[in-house]
């Protein structure tokens, strides 16, 4: 497979008065061209930080990011400006992600202007109206301000802005979680259509498991900055191996006519990511945890091709045997 983005042992720590906050703690993964990697986890597990670090909004504390086989760290200034065109981001809050003093067309044109892509105003206008067309925004909104539009339309502006530079890779940071459910579906469909049309690669960050199931080819589950389980989308839902993922998936509301559905309810709060103890990050809340879990970091094992799990007792819990 053709790997577009390759992340190796990525770390992002923040200095806080209480100590080092391990937001992203040694993540390794890759995304193939044209695919969608869904990243799930509860609030505060480092999903957004991961996205921002990969895209370069935050500086890395360690590790490497390879884009199209080249280490981003080694790029020259011109090359990294060129890279900006290839990696884009769609933000969570369509209210704060648009400059309130810029009209719709100005917001969309910003990237085109920054990279001097259009020779003159006429071409710029044409490009902008093409983009508005692509994302399904009526051209009469070109001179409106964001506050005059609803959330769905605003998110479309954000998508058009990201598409303006013809990117290959887009980090979607919870792009639908601030929207109404009916609008969510529209935006998700738009994102999928665009992916097919333009061969885009997505890193889709969300805490909504139904959304991630719908859109992802692969899913990575995070807990406190660490990888818990990563697997092709269907495989994850069919053969859930990590106790944390099992608990997470059992929380998806379903229509169940045969009565009870077993739900795993986790006890306790999410751990503090500041100066975490060694061992499995999930140990304190895990029903299966033993002494080993609290002392030794679990290794990431590939159980079946493409299905990675980080748990000491995964075989025992699931009654399987991995060679």
């Amino acid at each position: 497979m053709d790997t577009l983005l390759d992340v190796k042992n990525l770390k992002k720590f923040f200095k806080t008065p209480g100590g080092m906050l391990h937001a992203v703690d040694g993540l390794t993964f890759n995304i193939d061209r044209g695919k969608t990697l869904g990243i799930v986890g509860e609030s505060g597990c480092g999903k957004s930080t991961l996205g921002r670090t990969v895209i370069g909004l935050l500086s890395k504390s360690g590790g490497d990011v390879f884009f199209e086989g080249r280490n981003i760290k080694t790029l020259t200034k011109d090359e990294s400006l060129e890279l900006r065109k290839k990696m884009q981001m769609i933000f969570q809050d369509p209210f704060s992600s648009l400059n309130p003093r810029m009209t719709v067309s100005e917001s969309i044109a910003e990237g085109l202007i920054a990279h001097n892509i259009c020779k003159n105003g006429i071409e710029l206008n044409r490009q902008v109206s093409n983009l508005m067309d692509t994302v399904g925004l009526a051209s009469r909104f070109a001179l409106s301000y964001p506050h005059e539009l609803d959330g769905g339309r605003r998110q479309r502006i954000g998508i058009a802005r990201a598409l303006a530079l013809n990117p290959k890779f887009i980090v979607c940071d919870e792009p639908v979680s601030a929207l109404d459910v009916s609008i969510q579906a529209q935006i998700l469909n738009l994102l999928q259509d665009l992916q097919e049309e333009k061969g885009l690669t997505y890193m889709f960050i969300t805490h909504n498991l139904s959304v991630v199931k719908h859109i992802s080819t692969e899913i990575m589950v995070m807990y406190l900055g660490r990888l818990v389980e990563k697997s092709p989308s269907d495989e994850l839902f069919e053969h859930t191996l990590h106790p944390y993922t099992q608990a997470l998936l059992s929380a998806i509301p379903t229509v169940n006519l045969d009565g009870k559905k077993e739900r795993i309810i986790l006890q306790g709060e999410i751990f503090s990511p500041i100066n975490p103890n060694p061992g499995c990050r999930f140990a304190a809340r895990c029903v299966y945890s033993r002494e080993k879990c609290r002392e030794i970091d679990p290794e990431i094992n590939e159980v079946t091709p493409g299905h990675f799990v980080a748990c000491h007792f995964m075989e025992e819990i699931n009654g399987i045997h991995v060679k």
Partner: protein
Amino acid sequence: MSDREEFTPRSKKKSQISEILKRLLMNHAAVVGMLIMLILIFAAIFADYVAPYSYEQQNLNEMFARPSLKHLFGTDNFGRDIFSRVIYGARISLFIGLTSVVLGCISGGALGAIAAYYGGRADNIIMRVLDVMNSIPNLLLAISLSASMGAGVGNAMIAIGITSIPIYARVVRAAVMTVKEQEYIEAARVLGVSNRRIILRHILPNSLAPIIVQASLGIAGAIITTASLSFIGLGVVPPTPEWGGMLSAGRQYIRNHWHMVTFPGLAIMITVMSFNLFGDGLRDALDPRLKR
């Protein structure tokens, strides 16, 4: 989606400004302030036509004349018409007030914006230097600056402008720091927009409101400082009519000729009040949370 509702996009471009104006006009105090301000500005610009006499025309036959129809505010110790001098004085006061505020606003604003945007060491150095400036009382700093540069309109303007730099730097810094955290700034960075363009196109337009308010209030302060400087003989040099200078000149005659100090003093008071009223109103109008 109600894609069918109709509006003409072009008229929408002005909607924010017209809405702010509407809110401003609903505030009676602000309207009064604005009216007085406009009258003052009008009088200052057209002083040559509005004032009945020249500001330096002496008439020694009519020294210390009391207010009358001929001399609305009376005359001073050289027989000059105080009404005319107050009107010409508006020209000086408003000019110094505006230019010094513009000077302080631009340089202070730039410093504040740089400090907030780049943060870290740049922030520390700039703000500590401004703290040092701030530790000297404003008037004292203005006095020492204009004393070292010499009296005169230009120097007074520069002195007052410089003393106001820390205030603007602070206001702009605070505003920029809030705006900087917004997602649209991150979005601009991801797009590869240059720092310069981010500051000019994204951050400044969104942090203007507090700066405009501070500036409108700052003009009032600058007018008082100008008057104070002239009062102690460091600002505007006679015979140029300046309210503070007129107060200073009238001081020695205050026992017998009250009108010499009363009218310039009232002029200062009314001007400062009008700018304050207007500035307060503007602050409320620019605050979208007060939208009704």
